[in-house]
C-alpha cells in the first residue's frame, strides 16, 4: 500500500521548496525576536500608553488567526493603496505575529525572576540598559529557552500559510505533488521529514544554549 518509491520521489521538489520555508521562517524568526523584545519592553514599561499599545498588539495578533492577518496584509492593504510583494508580506506577517507570542514568553520569564536580582543592580546605580542586558535578560532568556524553542518550531510550521499568497514552500509543494501522484500519505510523510530535520536543528540549538548558559 505505502509506496516507498513515491515517498522517495517526493524529496526532489520538496527540498527545492524548502528554500522558501527556510527563508520565510528564518527572516520571520529574526523579525519576531527583535519585535518581540520591543513589545515586551513596552509591556513592562512605566508609561501607560506603551503598556496599552503592547497589550493591544498582543491581543490582536494572538487573537486573529495568522491566515486572516496574511489576507489582511496582502489583499486588504492594496484596497487602501499599499501594495507589497508577496514575499515581503509573508515575512512581515509571520514576524509580526511571532512577536506577540515571543513577547509573552519573555514577559513571563522576567516576571518570575526574584526581585532581589534587579535590586542588587539598581542599588549600585546601574542604568536600565545594563540592568536589562546584563542581569535580567541573561537569566530570563535561559529560563524561557524551552518555551521559546517551542514557539520557533511552531513558527517554522506556520510558515506554510504563506502559500496563500503564492509562495511555494514545503507544505504547498507537497499538496501539489500529492495532487499529481494521488499519493498524499507518502508525500506528506516526506514533507514531515523535512520539517522534522529543520526543527531538530532548532531543538538541538536550544538544548545546546540551555546547557551552555545554565549555571
Amino acid at each position, binding site marked *: 500500500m505505502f509506496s516507498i518509491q513515491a515517498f522517495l520521489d517526493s524529496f526532489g521538489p520538496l527540498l527545492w521548496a524548502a528554500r522558501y520555508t527556510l527563508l520565510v521562517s528564518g527572516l520571520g524568526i529574526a523579525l519576531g525576536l527583535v519585535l518581540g523584545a520591543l513589545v515586551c519592553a513596552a509591556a513592562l514599561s512605566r508609561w501607560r500608553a506603551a503598556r496599552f499599545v503592547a497589550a493591544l498588539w498582543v491581543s490582536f495578533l494572538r487573537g486573529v488567526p495568522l491566515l486572516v492577518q496574511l489576507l489582511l496584509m496582502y489583499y486588504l492593504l492594496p484596497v487602501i493603496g499599499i501594495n507589497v510583494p508577496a514575499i515581503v508580506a509573508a515575512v512581515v506577517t509571520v514576524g509580526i505575529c511571532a512577536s506577540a507570542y515571543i513577547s509573552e514568553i519573555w514577559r513571563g520569564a522576567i516576571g518570575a525572576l526574584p526581585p532581589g536580582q534587579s535590586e542588587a543592580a539598581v542599588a549600585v546605580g546601574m542604568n536600565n540598559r545594563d540592568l536589562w542586558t546584563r542581569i535580567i535578560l541573561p537569566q530570563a532568556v535561559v529560563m524561557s529557552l524551552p518555551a521559546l524553542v517551542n514557539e520557533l518550531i511552531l513558527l517554522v510550521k506556520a510558515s506554510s500559510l504563506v502559500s496563500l499568497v503564492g509562495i511555494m514552500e514545503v507544505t504547498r509543494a507537497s499538496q501539489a505533488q500529492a495532487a499529481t501522484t494521488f499519493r*498524499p500519505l507518502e508525500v506528506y510523510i516526506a514533507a514531515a521529514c523535512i520539517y522534522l530535520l529543520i*526543527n531538530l536543528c532548532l531543538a538541538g540549538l536550544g538544548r545546546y544554549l540551555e546547557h551552555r548558559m545554565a549555571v
Partner: protein
Amino acid sequence: MDWDVLRQYAPILLRGFGITILAWAFGTVFGMALGLVISLAQRYGARPVRWVLQAYIEVVRGTPFLVQLFVLYYGGPLVGLRLDALPAGLVGLTIYGSPYFAEIFRSGFDAVPPGQAEAARAIGMAEPAIVRRILLPLGLVSALPALVNFSIILTKETVILSVITVPELMYQVQRMSTETFRYLEANLVLALFFWGLVELISRGGRRLETRITRHLLERPGHG
C-alpha cells in the same frame, strides 16, 4: 457587509464555533495532562524511558499537525486503526499538544530552586506529594504565561481539523465563502470569533497569574 448572508449562516457558524471550542478545550486539558505526565516521566524515569520520550517530543513537535492528522485519519485504516473524524481530531490535538506542554512544564520545574524540593525531601515527603505540593505550584509561576500562550496557539490549530471534515468554525466559514463569495465577511467572522475566544483565555490566564504570584515576588527572601 452582507448581513443577510451572516444571518442565514449564523446557525452553522455557531455550531462550528461550538466544535472549535470543544476541540480546544479537549486538546488543552488532555494535551496538558499528557504533557505533564511526560515531563514527570522524563524527570523521574530511567534513562531508556527518557530517551524514548525525548524522541517522541522531537518527532511530534517537529512535524506539522496537518501531516499527523492526515497520517492518523487517512493512514490509520491501513494498519487497522479506524477513527471517526471528530474522535480522530480530538486524539490528534491531544497528541500534538503534549510535547509542547511537556517542554513548558520541564522548564517550569527547572526554574524551581533545588532547595525547595530538598526541604520537602528532608522531612521524608513522598515524590508524588512533592510534585503536587511544591514543584507544581512553584513551577507554574514561571510556566503559566507560556502555558497560556500555547493554549492560545492550540485554538488556531483546531482549524486544521477541517481537513478531515470535522465541521468546526473554519470548515463552516469556508463553506460560507465558497457558496456566497463573501470573503470579507468570512474572514471577519474568523477574526472576531477567534479574537473573542483568545481574549477570554488570556484574561483568565492573567487572572491566574496574579493570583499565583501574589505572595511570591514582592520582596527578596529566599523562602
